[in-house]
Protein backbone atom coordinates (compact mmCIF):
# COMPACT_ATOMS: atom_id res chain seq x y z
CA UNK A 1 0.00 0.00 0.00
CA UNK A 2 1.36 3.37 -0.94
CA UNK A 3 0.94 6.27 1.36
CA UNK A 4 -0.74 9.52 0.50
CA UNK A 5 1.14 11.99 -1.56
CA UNK A 6 0.26 15.60 -1.41
CA UNK A 7 -2.59 16.47 -3.73
CA UNK A 8 -2.43 13.21 -5.55
CA UNK A 9 -4.37 11.05 -3.21
CA UNK A 10 -7.70 9.59 -3.94
CA UNK A 11 -9.51 8.02 -1.11
CA UNK A 12 -11.80 5.06 -1.15
CA UNK A 13 -15.19 5.33 -2.77
CA UNK A 14 -18.43 4.91 -0.89
CA UNK A 15 -17.78 1.33 0.11
CA UNK A 16 -14.17 2.12 0.96
CA UNK A 17 -13.31 -0.98 -0.96
CA UNK A 18 -11.90 0.43 -4.16
CA UNK A 19 -8.95 2.24 -2.66
CA UNK A 20 -6.59 3.52 -5.26
CA UNK A 21 -3.76 5.98 -5.28
CA UNK A 22 -4.01 8.21 -8.29
CA UNK A 23 -1.67 10.43 -10.19
CA UNK A 24 -2.70 13.47 -12.13
CA UNK A 25 -3.44 11.57 -15.29
CA UNK A 26 -6.63 9.86 -16.28
CA UNK A 27 -5.75 6.30 -15.53
CA UNK A 28 -8.73 5.83 -13.27
CA UNK A 29 -10.03 2.32 -13.05
CA UNK A 30 -12.61 3.17 -10.44
CA UNK A 31 -16.26 2.69 -11.17
CA UNK A 32 -17.35 6.25 -11.80
CA UNK A 33 -20.98 5.33 -12.43
CA UNK A 34 -21.14 3.76 -8.97
CA UNK A 35 -19.48 6.73 -7.30
CA UNK A 36 -21.85 9.08 -9.06
CA UNK A 37 -24.78 7.01 -7.82
CA UNK A 38 -23.61 7.12 -4.20
CA UNK A 39 -23.03 10.82 -4.55
CA UNK A 40 -26.62 11.23 -5.71
CA UNK A 41 -27.78 9.22 -2.72
CA UNK A 42 -26.11 11.71 -0.45
CA UNK A 43 -22.79 10.03 0.27
CA UNK A 44 -20.34 12.76 1.17
CA UNK A 45 -17.30 10.57 0.71
CA UNK A 46 -18.34 10.14 -2.89
CA UNK A 47 -18.67 13.87 -3.23
CA UNK A 48 -15.24 14.43 -1.72
CA UNK A 49 -13.86 11.86 -4.13
CA UNK A 50 -15.34 13.68 -7.10
CA UNK A 51 -14.09 17.03 -5.92
CA UNK A 52 -10.62 15.74 -5.14
CA UNK A 53 -10.32 13.99 -8.48
CA UNK A 54 -11.55 16.84 -10.62
CA UNK A 55 -10.74 20.13 -8.94
CA UNK A 56 -7.32 20.65 -10.52
CA UNK A 57 -8.49 19.26 -13.85
CA UNK A 58 -11.31 21.75 -14.07
CA UNK A 59 -9.10 24.55 -12.81
CA UNK A 60 -6.69 23.93 -15.66
CA UNK A 61 -9.35 23.55 -18.30
CA UNK A 62 -10.55 26.94 -17.15
CA UNK A 63 -6.98 28.20 -17.16
CA UNK A 64 -6.77 27.57 -20.89
CA UNK A 65 -9.77 29.83 -21.39
CA UNK A 66 -8.85 32.64 -19.03
CA UNK A 67 -5.97 33.68 -16.82
CA UNK A 68 -8.35 35.04 -14.24
CA UNK A 69 -7.94 32.35 -11.63
CA UNK A 70 -10.48 33.76 -9.21
CA UNK A 71 -13.14 33.71 -11.93
CA UNK A 72 -12.35 30.07 -12.68
CA UNK A 73 -12.50 29.23 -9.00
CA UNK A 74 -15.87 30.98 -8.71
CA UNK A 75 -17.12 28.92 -11.59
CA UNK A 76 -15.96 25.63 -10.06
CA UNK A 77 -17.42 26.61 -6.71
CA UNK A 78 -20.83 27.40 -8.17
CA UNK A 79 -20.84 24.30 -10.34
CA UNK A 80 -20.23 22.06 -7.34
CA UNK A 81 -22.74 23.92 -5.17
CA UNK A 82 -25.35 23.36 -7.87
CA UNK A 83 -24.70 19.67 -8.31
CA UNK A 84 -24.72 19.23 -4.53
CA UNK A 85 -28.08 20.94 -4.21
CA UNK A 86 -29.59 19.13 -7.18
CA UNK A 87 -27.86 15.85 -6.54
CA UNK A 88 -31.03 13.78 -6.22
CA UNK A 89 -32.34 15.03 -9.54
CA UNK A 90 -29.15 14.57 -11.53
CA UNK A 91 -29.12 12.03 -14.33
CA UNK A 92 -27.01 8.91 -14.07
CA UNK A 93 -23.75 9.33 -15.88
CA UNK A 94 -21.19 6.84 -17.11
CA UNK A 95 -18.28 9.24 -17.07
CA UNK A 96 -18.11 11.83 -14.32
CA UNK A 97 -15.18 13.31 -16.19
CA UNK A 98 -17.13 14.12 -19.32
CA UNK A 99 -20.15 15.29 -17.37
CA UNK A 100 -18.07 17.74 -15.34
CA UNK A 101 -15.92 18.92 -18.25
CA UNK A 102 -19.03 19.59 -20.26
CA UNK A 103 -21.00 21.41 -17.57
CA UNK A 104 -17.93 23.36 -16.60
CA UNK A 105 -17.17 24.54 -20.14
CA UNK A 106 -20.76 25.59 -20.65
CA UNK A 107 -20.73 27.50 -17.40
CA UNK A 108 -17.35 29.11 -18.06
CA UNK A 109 -18.79 30.67 -21.21
CA UNK A 110 -21.26 32.64 -19.06
CA UNK A 111 -18.60 33.63 -16.56
CA UNK A 112 -16.26 34.83 -19.26
CA UNK A 113 -18.98 36.96 -20.74
CA UNK A 114 -19.70 38.41 -17.35
CA UNK A 115 -16.02 39.17 -16.87
CA UNK A 116 -15.73 40.78 -20.32
CA UNK A 117 -18.38 43.29 -19.37
CA UNK A 118 -16.63 44.12 -16.14
CA UNK A 119 -13.01 44.21 -17.09
CA UNK A 120 -11.56 46.54 -19.66
CA UNK A 121 -9.55 45.15 -22.49
CA UNK A 122 -6.24 46.57 -21.30
CA UNK A 123 -6.25 44.60 -18.13
CA UNK A 124 -7.08 41.50 -20.05
CA UNK A 125 -4.14 41.98 -22.34
CA UNK A 126 -1.84 42.33 -19.37
CA UNK A 127 -3.23 39.06 -18.11
CA UNK A 128 -1.96 37.01 -21.01
CA UNK A 129 0.83 34.60 -20.27
CA UNK A 130 2.40 31.77 -22.08
CA UNK A 131 -0.11 29.22 -23.07
CA UNK A 132 2.26 26.34 -23.42
CA UNK A 133 4.82 24.91 -21.14
CA UNK A 134 8.04 23.00 -21.59
CA UNK A 135 8.28 19.47 -20.24
CA UNK A 136 10.08 19.50 -16.96
CA UNK A 137 12.85 17.12 -18.04
CA UNK A 138 13.69 19.40 -20.94
CA UNK A 139 13.71 22.42 -18.71
CA UNK A 140 16.83 21.13 -17.02
CA UNK A 141 18.83 20.97 -20.22
CA UNK A 142 19.20 24.34 -21.79
CA UNK A 143 17.16 27.24 -20.66
CA UNK A 144 18.04 29.69 -23.45
CA UNK A 145 17.17 27.44 -26.32
CA UNK A 146 14.06 26.36 -24.53
CA UNK A 147 13.01 29.91 -24.06
CA UNK A 148 13.08 30.34 -27.83
CA UNK A 149 11.17 27.11 -28.28
CA UNK A 150 8.62 28.21 -25.83
CA UNK A 151 8.11 31.56 -27.47
CA UNK A 152 7.84 29.95 -30.89
CA UNK A 153 5.37 27.28 -29.92
CA UNK A 154 3.44 29.76 -27.92
CA UNK A 155 3.16 32.02 -30.94
CA UNK A 156 1.79 29.10 -32.85
CA UNK A 157 -0.72 28.25 -30.19
CA UNK A 158 -1.78 31.89 -30.07
CA UNK A 159 -2.49 31.80 -33.79
CA UNK A 160 -5.13 29.15 -33.26
CA UNK A 161 -8.76 29.84 -32.70
CA UNK A 162 -10.03 29.14 -29.23
CA UNK A 163 -11.75 25.98 -30.40
CA UNK A 164 -8.65 24.67 -32.13
CA UNK A 165 -6.57 25.40 -29.09
CA UNK A 166 -9.01 23.54 -26.89
CA UNK A 167 -9.09 20.62 -29.31
CA UNK A 168 -5.29 20.36 -29.14
CA UNK A 169 -5.38 20.69 -25.37
CA UNK A 170 -7.94 17.97 -24.86
CA UNK A 171 -6.59 15.61 -27.51
CA UNK A 172 -2.86 15.73 -26.82
CA UNK A 173 -2.63 17.03 -23.31
CA UNK A 174 -5.69 15.62 -21.56
CA UNK A 175 -5.60 12.53 -23.75
CA UNK A 176 -9.30 12.51 -24.58
CA UNK A 177 -10.46 10.58 -27.62
CA UNK A 178 -12.09 12.17 -30.69
CA UNK A 179 -15.37 10.71 -29.52
CA UNK A 180 -15.05 12.27 -26.08
CA UNK A 181 -14.14 15.67 -27.48
CA UNK A 182 -17.07 15.41 -29.90
CA UNK A 183 -19.33 14.85 -26.93
CA UNK A 184 -17.72 17.67 -24.99
CA UNK A 185 -18.12 20.18 -27.82
CA UNK A 186 -21.62 18.97 -28.63
CA UNK A 187 -20.65 18.16 -32.17
CA UNK A 188 -22.72 15.74 -34.19
CA UNK A 189 -19.86 14.03 -35.94
CA UNK A 190 -16.59 12.74 -34.62
CA UNK A 191 -15.07 13.67 -37.97
CA UNK A 192 -15.53 17.35 -37.13
CA UNK A 193 -13.15 17.03 -34.19
CA UNK A 194 -10.56 15.27 -36.30
CA UNK A 195 -10.81 18.10 -38.82
CA UNK A 196 -10.40 20.64 -36.08
CA UNK A 197 -7.22 18.99 -34.84
CA UNK A 198 -6.04 18.73 -38.45
CA UNK A 199 -6.65 22.45 -39.01
CA UNK A 200 -4.81 23.30 -35.83
CA UNK A 201 -1.81 21.13 -36.72
CA UNK A 202 -1.58 22.76 -40.13
CA UNK A 203 -1.43 26.18 -38.53
CA UNK A 204 1.13 24.97 -36.02
CA UNK A 205 3.35 23.35 -38.64
CA UNK A 206 5.90 26.16 -39.19
CA UNK A 207 6.33 26.61 -35.46
CA UNK A 208 6.61 22.91 -34.81
CA UNK A 209 9.39 22.54 -37.38
CA UNK A 210 11.45 25.16 -35.60
CA UNK A 211 10.87 23.50 -32.27
CA UNK A 212 11.98 20.17 -33.67
CA UNK A 213 15.20 21.61 -35.04
CA UNK A 214 15.98 23.03 -31.66
CA UNK A 215 15.24 19.86 -29.83
CA UNK A 216 17.58 18.02 -32.22
CA UNK A 217 20.34 20.36 -31.15
CA UNK A 218 19.49 19.80 -27.53
CA UNK A 219 19.23 16.08 -27.77
CA UNK A 220 22.53 15.60 -29.57
Amino acid at each position, binding site marked *: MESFESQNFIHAGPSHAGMRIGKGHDTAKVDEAQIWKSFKEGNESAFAYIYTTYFYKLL*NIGYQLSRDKSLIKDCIQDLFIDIRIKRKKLADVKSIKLYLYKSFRRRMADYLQYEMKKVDKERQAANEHYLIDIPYEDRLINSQLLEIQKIKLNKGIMALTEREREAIYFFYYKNLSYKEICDLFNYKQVKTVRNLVYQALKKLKPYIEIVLIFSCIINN
Partner: protein
Amino acid sequence: MEYKDFRLIDFLLDEDFKEWVLNPDSNRTLFWDEWLRAYPEKRQEFMKAKEIILKMRFSEVQEEEDFHEVFGKILQGEKSAAGKFIESQKMQRSGMPAWLKIAASLSLIIVAIYFFRVSRIGQEENNITVSEIVKNNPKGRKLTFALPDGSIVNLNSESSLFFPETFHPDRREVRLVGEAYFDIKGDSAWPFVVIAGNISTTALGTSFNVRAWPDKTTTDIALVSGIVEVKKINDANPGMLLSPGEKITHDEITDEFTKSKFDLALETGWKDKILVFKNASLGEFVQTVERWYDVEIELQGASPSSTAWSIDGEFRDTSLEQVLESLSFVYKINYAINGRKVILKF
Protein backbone atom coordinates in the same frame (compact mmCIF):
# COMPACT_ATOMS: atom_id res chain seq x y z
CA MET B 1 -5.52 4.90 -45.28
CA GLU B 2 -2.85 2.26 -45.39
CA TYR B 3 -0.22 2.50 -42.70
CA LYS B 4 2.57 2.34 -45.24
CA ASP B 5 1.40 5.66 -46.67
CA PHE B 6 1.59 7.38 -43.29
CA ARG B 7 3.03 10.87 -43.20
CA LEU B 8 3.85 12.97 -40.14
CA ILE B 9 0.37 14.45 -39.99
CA ASP B 10 -1.22 11.01 -40.16
CA PHE B 11 0.72 9.85 -37.16
CA LEU B 12 -0.31 12.95 -35.28
CA LEU B 13 -3.96 12.43 -36.10
CA ASP B 14 -3.98 8.71 -35.38
CA GLU B 15 -5.82 8.14 -32.15
CA ASP B 16 -4.15 4.88 -31.36
CA PHE B 17 -0.70 6.28 -31.97
CA LYS B 18 -1.39 9.24 -29.73
CA GLU B 19 -2.81 7.01 -27.01
CA TRP B 20 0.31 4.88 -27.15
CA VAL B 21 2.67 7.85 -26.91
CA LEU B 22 0.85 9.36 -23.95
CA ASN B 23 -0.11 6.21 -22.18
CA PRO B 24 2.02 3.32 -23.39
CA ASP B 25 0.74 -0.14 -22.57
CA SER B 26 2.36 -3.41 -23.54
CA ASN B 27 -0.19 -4.30 -26.22
CA ARG B 28 0.23 -1.07 -28.09
CA THR B 29 3.98 -1.09 -27.63
CA LEU B 30 4.05 -4.51 -29.23
CA PHE B 31 1.97 -3.26 -32.13
CA TRP B 32 3.97 -0.10 -32.82
CA ASP B 33 7.31 -1.87 -32.43
CA GLU B 34 6.16 -4.38 -35.01
CA TRP B 35 4.97 -1.56 -37.17
CA LEU B 36 8.31 0.19 -37.11
CA ARG B 37 10.03 -3.03 -38.06
CA ALA B 38 7.67 -3.45 -41.00
CA TYR B 39 8.14 0.11 -42.28
CA PRO B 40 11.66 1.17 -41.31
CA GLU B 41 11.60 3.97 -43.89
CA LYS B 42 8.98 5.72 -41.77
CA ARG B 43 11.20 5.86 -38.74
CA GLN B 44 12.04 9.55 -38.93
CA GLU B 45 8.47 10.72 -39.21
CA PHE B 46 7.43 8.26 -36.56
CA MET B 47 9.93 9.65 -34.06
CA LYS B 48 9.10 13.22 -35.02
CA ALA B 49 5.42 12.66 -34.40
CA LYS B 50 6.14 11.08 -31.05
CA GLU B 51 8.25 14.05 -30.02
CA ILE B 52 5.68 16.60 -31.10
CA ILE B 53 2.95 14.90 -29.11
CA LEU B 54 5.16 14.85 -26.04
CA LYS B 55 5.96 18.54 -26.54
CA MET B 56 2.32 19.57 -26.43
CA ARG B 57 2.48 20.75 -22.87
CA PHE B 58 0.25 23.50 -21.58
CA SER B 59 0.93 25.75 -18.62
CA GLU B 60 -0.97 24.61 -15.61
CA VAL B 61 -1.69 25.76 -12.12
CA GLN B 62 -1.87 23.56 -9.08
CA GLU B 63 -1.99 25.24 -5.73
CA GLU B 64 -3.27 23.40 -2.71
CA GLU B 65 -4.54 26.66 -1.28
CA ASP B 66 -7.07 26.99 -4.10
CA PHE B 67 -8.20 23.42 -3.58
CA HIS B 68 -9.04 24.01 0.07
CA GLU B 69 -10.45 27.48 -0.40
CA VAL B 70 -12.97 26.36 -3.00
CA PHE B 71 -13.85 23.22 -1.05
CA GLY B 72 -14.66 25.26 2.04
CA LYS B 73 -16.87 27.60 0.01
CA ILE B 74 -18.73 24.69 -1.57
CA LEU B 75 -19.47 23.22 1.84
CA GLN B 76 -20.77 26.59 2.97
CA GLY B 77 -23.01 26.57 -0.08
CA GLU B 78 -22.79 30.28 -0.82
CA LYS B 79 -22.38 31.05 -4.51
CA SER B 80 -19.89 33.57 -5.86
CA ALA B 81 -20.91 37.12 -6.74
CA ALA B 82 -20.38 36.35 -10.41
CA GLY B 83 -22.59 33.28 -10.15
CA LYS B 84 -25.37 35.13 -8.40
CA PHE B 85 -25.31 37.92 -10.96
CA ILE B 86 -25.39 35.52 -13.91
CA GLU B 87 -28.27 33.58 -12.37
CA SER B 88 -30.33 36.67 -11.70
CA GLN B 89 -29.80 37.77 -15.31
CA LYS B 90 -30.86 34.39 -16.58
CA MET B 91 -33.91 34.43 -14.39
CA GLN B 92 -34.95 37.80 -15.80
CA ARG B 93 -34.33 36.70 -19.35
CA SER B 94 -36.25 33.50 -18.95
CA GLY B 95 -39.19 35.65 -17.85
CA MET B 96 -40.74 33.63 -15.10
CA PRO B 97 -44.52 33.80 -15.40
CA ALA B 98 -46.17 35.95 -12.77
CA TRP B 99 -48.04 33.09 -11.11
CA LEU B 100 -44.82 31.15 -10.63
CA LYS B 101 -43.25 34.09 -8.84
CA ILE B 102 -46.15 34.15 -6.45
CA ALA B 103 -45.88 30.44 -5.92
CA ALA B 104 -42.21 30.78 -5.15
CA SER B 105 -42.74 33.38 -2.48
CA LEU B 106 -45.61 31.37 -1.08
CA SER B 107 -43.54 28.27 -0.64
CA LEU B 108 -40.91 30.39 1.03
CA ILE B 109 -43.40 31.51 3.64
CA ILE B 110 -44.56 27.96 4.21
CA VAL B 111 -41.01 26.80 4.68
CA ALA B 112 -40.34 29.59 7.14
CA ILE B 113 -43.37 28.69 9.24
CA TYR B 114 -42.41 25.07 9.16
CA PHE B 115 -38.93 25.79 10.44
CA PHE B 116 -40.28 27.99 13.17
CA ARG B 117 -42.45 25.14 14.38
CA VAL B 118 -39.70 22.61 14.29
CA SER B 119 -37.33 24.76 16.24
CA ARG B 120 -39.96 25.37 18.92
CA ILE B 121 -40.58 21.69 19.26
CA GLY B 122 -36.87 21.21 19.51
CA GLN B 123 -36.68 23.64 22.39
CA GLU B 124 -39.37 21.87 24.29
CA GLU B 125 -37.52 18.64 23.93
CA ASN B 126 -34.48 20.25 25.43
CA ASN B 127 -36.11 20.45 28.78
CA ILE B 128 -36.60 16.72 28.95
CA THR B 129 -33.51 14.91 30.12
CA VAL B 130 -32.33 12.74 27.28
CA SER B 131 -31.13 9.33 28.30
CA GLU B 132 -27.67 8.27 27.24
CA ILE B 133 -26.80 5.15 25.30
CA VAL B 134 -23.49 3.35 25.63
CA LYS B 135 -22.09 1.01 23.03
CA ASN B 136 -19.35 -1.06 24.51
CA ASN B 137 -16.98 -3.45 22.77
CA PRO B 138 -14.91 -6.04 24.58
CA LYS B 139 -11.59 -7.26 23.22
CA GLY B 140 -11.81 -9.11 19.95
CA ARG B 141 -15.15 -7.64 18.86
CA LYS B 142 -15.91 -4.90 16.39
CA LEU B 143 -19.26 -3.26 15.94
CA THR B 144 -20.96 -1.22 13.23
CA PHE B 145 -24.12 0.67 14.08
CA ALA B 146 -26.14 3.75 13.17
CA LEU B 147 -26.55 6.76 15.41
CA PRO B 148 -29.95 8.43 15.89
CA ASP B 149 -29.19 10.81 13.00
CA GLY B 150 -28.26 8.03 10.58
CA SER B 151 -24.49 8.50 10.82
CA ILE B 152 -22.56 5.24 10.78
CA VAL B 153 -20.01 4.29 13.41
CA ASN B 154 -17.49 1.47 13.30
CA LEU B 155 -16.37 0.85 16.84
CA ASN B 156 -13.11 -0.98 17.36
CA SER B 157 -12.57 -3.58 20.05
CA GLU B 158 -12.04 -2.41 23.63
CA SER B 159 -13.76 0.85 22.79
CA SER B 160 -16.90 2.61 24.00
CA LEU B 161 -19.11 5.27 22.49
CA PHE B 162 -21.55 7.35 24.55
CA PHE B 163 -24.34 9.23 22.81
CA PRO B 164 -27.85 10.50 23.62
CA GLU B 165 -31.03 8.78 22.52
CA THR B 166 -31.95 11.93 20.61
CA PHE B 167 -29.38 14.47 19.58
CA HIS B 168 -29.56 18.04 20.72
CA PRO B 169 -31.08 20.21 17.96
CA ASP B 170 -28.00 22.45 17.96
CA ARG B 171 -25.28 19.85 17.86
CA ARG B 172 -24.71 16.14 17.70
CA GLU B 173 -22.27 15.21 20.40
CA VAL B 174 -20.76 11.82 21.18
CA ARG B 175 -17.99 10.75 23.55
CA LEU B 176 -15.41 8.17 22.64
CA VAL B 177 -13.00 5.99 24.56
CA GLY B 178 -10.80 3.88 22.31
CA GLU B 179 -11.07 3.97 18.54
CA ALA B 180 -13.92 4.55 16.10
CA TYR B 181 -14.48 5.38 12.45
CA PHE B 182 -17.28 7.82 11.70
CA ASP B 183 -19.18 8.25 8.47
CA ILE B 184 -21.23 11.31 9.25
CA LYS B 185 -24.57 12.05 7.70
CA GLY B 186 -24.01 15.42 6.08
CA ASP B 187 -25.74 18.44 7.53
CA SER B 188 -23.47 21.42 7.75
CA ALA B 189 -25.98 23.30 9.90
CA TRP B 190 -25.94 20.56 12.50
CA PRO B 191 -22.37 20.05 13.67
CA PHE B 192 -21.24 16.61 14.68
CA VAL B 193 -18.79 16.62 17.58
CA VAL B 194 -16.69 13.75 18.88
CA ILE B 195 -15.19 14.24 22.33
CA ALA B 196 -12.21 12.00 23.05
CA GLY B 197 -10.25 12.78 26.17
CA ASN B 198 -9.91 16.55 26.17
CA ILE B 199 -9.98 16.84 22.38
CA SER B 200 -13.05 17.69 20.36
CA THR B 201 -13.42 17.01 16.65
CA THR B 202 -16.16 18.86 14.80
CA ALA B 203 -17.24 17.54 11.45
CA LEU B 204 -19.15 18.80 8.46
CA GLY B 205 -20.34 15.94 6.29
CA THR B 206 -17.35 13.75 6.55
CA SER B 207 -15.67 10.47 7.41
CA PHE B 208 -12.81 10.21 9.81
CA ASN B 209 -11.12 8.02 12.33
CA VAL B 210 -10.53 8.93 15.97
CA ARG B 211 -8.12 6.94 18.08
CA ALA B 212 -7.86 7.68 21.76
CA TRP B 213 -6.78 4.60 23.68
CA PRO B 214 -6.97 5.14 27.40
CA ASP B 215 -3.56 3.49 27.87
CA LYS B 216 -1.87 5.87 25.44
CA THR B 217 -1.10 9.53 25.86
CA THR B 218 -1.87 10.49 22.30
CA THR B 219 -5.11 11.07 20.41
CA ASP B 220 -5.14 10.62 16.62
CA ILE B 221 -7.69 12.00 14.21
CA ALA B 222 -7.37 10.93 10.57
CA LEU B 223 -9.63 12.54 7.99
CA VAL B 224 -10.79 10.57 4.98
CA SER B 225 -13.15 13.07 3.42
CA GLY B 226 -14.77 16.39 4.15
CA ILE B 227 -13.45 18.93 6.61
CA VAL B 228 -13.08 18.71 10.38
CA GLU B 229 -11.98 21.09 13.06
CA VAL B 230 -9.92 19.75 15.94
CA LYS B 231 -9.30 21.53 19.23
CA LYS B 232 -9.13 21.15 22.97
CA ILE B 233 -12.58 21.07 24.51
CA ASN B 234 -12.45 24.22 26.55
CA ASP B 235 -10.58 26.30 24.00
CA ALA B 236 -12.60 29.25 22.73
CA ASN B 237 -10.24 29.90 19.83
CA PRO B 238 -10.85 28.22 16.50
CA GLY B 239 -9.07 24.88 16.26
CA MET B 240 -7.01 23.35 13.49
CA LEU B 241 -8.67 22.37 10.25
CA LEU B 242 -7.90 19.04 8.65
CA SER B 243 -8.30 18.29 5.00
CA PRO B 244 -8.66 14.81 3.51
CA GLY B 245 -5.54 12.68 3.81
CA GLU B 246 -4.32 14.59 6.84
CA LYS B 247 -4.00 13.32 10.35
CA ILE B 248 -3.53 15.21 13.56
CA THR B 249 -1.97 13.85 16.73
CA HIS B 250 -2.38 15.43 20.11
CA ASP B 251 0.16 14.55 22.73
CA GLU B 252 -1.25 14.88 26.21
CA ILE B 253 2.16 15.16 27.85
CA THR B 254 3.61 17.93 25.70
CA ASP B 255 0.13 19.29 24.91
CA GLU B 256 1.15 19.64 21.28
CA PHE B 257 -0.69 19.06 18.03
CA THR B 258 1.20 17.57 15.08
CA LYS B 259 -0.20 17.36 11.58
CA SER B 260 0.92 14.70 9.12
CA LYS B 261 -0.19 12.75 6.06
CA PHE B 262 -1.58 9.33 6.80
CA ASP B 263 -1.90 5.92 5.28
CA LEU B 264 -5.55 5.11 4.71
CA ALA B 265 -5.20 1.37 5.19
CA LEU B 266 -3.09 1.71 8.30
CA GLU B 267 -5.44 4.18 9.90
CA THR B 268 -8.84 2.80 8.98
CA GLY B 269 -8.15 -0.74 7.80
CA TRP B 270 -9.42 -2.19 11.05
CA LYS B 271 -13.00 -1.23 10.27
CA ASP B 272 -12.89 -3.37 7.12
CA LYS B 273 -11.34 -6.19 9.10
CA ILE B 274 -7.93 -5.54 7.63
CA LEU B 275 -5.13 -5.84 10.13
CA VAL B 276 -2.36 -3.52 8.97
CA PHE B 277 1.21 -3.16 10.15
CA LYS B 278 3.55 -0.54 8.88
CA ASN B 279 7.02 -0.37 10.41
CA ALA B 280 5.48 -1.88 13.50
CA SER B 281 7.84 -2.76 16.33
CA LEU B 282 7.57 -5.99 18.27
CA GLY B 283 5.83 -4.12 21.10
CA GLU B 284 3.25 -2.58 18.77
CA PHE B 285 2.69 -5.91 17.11
CA VAL B 286 2.01 -7.65 20.41
CA GLN B 287 -0.34 -4.93 21.61
CA THR B 288 -2.32 -4.81 18.36
CA VAL B 289 -2.64 -8.57 18.05
CA GLU B 290 -3.77 -8.89 21.67
CA ARG B 291 -6.51 -6.35 21.10
CA TRP B 292 -7.52 -7.67 17.70
CA TYR B 293 -7.84 -11.35 18.60
CA ASP B 294 -8.52 -10.99 22.31
CA VAL B 295 -5.51 -13.01 23.37
CA GLU B 296 -2.58 -12.61 25.70
CA ILE B 297 0.87 -12.95 24.26
CA GLU B 298 3.78 -14.24 26.23
CA LEU B 299 7.34 -13.86 24.97
CA GLN B 300 9.70 -16.71 25.75
CA GLY B 301 13.41 -17.18 25.22
CA ALA B 302 15.82 -14.47 24.15
CA SER B 303 13.22 -12.03 22.85
CA PRO B 304 14.54 -8.88 21.18
CA SER B 305 13.73 -5.50 22.72
CA SER B 306 10.16 -4.34 22.19
CA THR B 307 11.32 -1.59 19.85
CA ALA B 308 13.12 -4.04 17.60
CA TRP B 309 11.64 -5.32 14.35
CA SER B 310 9.87 -3.47 11.63
CA ILE B 311 6.82 -5.39 10.56
CA ASP B 312 4.95 -4.60 7.38
CA GLY B 313 1.86 -6.43 6.32
CA GLU B 314 -1.82 -6.44 5.60
CA PHE B 315 -4.11 -9.23 6.73
CA ARG B 316 -7.64 -9.24 5.45
CA ASP B 317 -9.97 -11.32 7.59
CA THR B 318 -7.09 -13.55 8.55
CA SER B 319 -6.95 -16.01 11.42
CA LEU B 320 -4.50 -15.52 14.26
CA GLU B 321 -2.72 -18.67 13.23
CA GLN B 322 -2.12 -17.39 9.71
CA VAL B 323 -0.78 -14.09 11.02
CA LEU B 324 1.65 -15.83 13.34
CA GLU B 325 2.57 -18.28 10.60
CA SER B 326 3.65 -15.49 8.27
CA LEU B 327 5.47 -13.78 11.12
CA SER B 328 7.38 -16.94 11.97
CA PHE B 329 8.26 -17.29 8.33
CA VAL B 330 9.98 -13.93 8.28
CA TYR B 331 11.47 -13.82 11.77
CA LYS B 332 12.21 -17.46 12.41
CA ILE B 333 10.29 -17.80 15.63
CA ASN B 334 8.04 -20.51 16.98
CA TYR B 335 4.57 -19.94 18.27
CA ALA B 336 1.90 -21.84 20.12
CA ILE B 337 -1.78 -21.00 20.59
CA ASN B 338 -3.52 -22.40 23.66
CA GLY B 339 -7.00 -20.96 23.76
CA ARG B 340 -6.56 -17.30 24.66
CA LYS B 341 -2.89 -17.69 25.46
CA VAL B 342 -0.27 -17.22 22.79
CA ILE B 343 3.39 -18.00 23.22
CA LEU B 344 6.09 -16.61 20.98
CA LYS B 345 9.40 -18.48 21.34
CA PHE B 346 12.60 -16.85 20.20
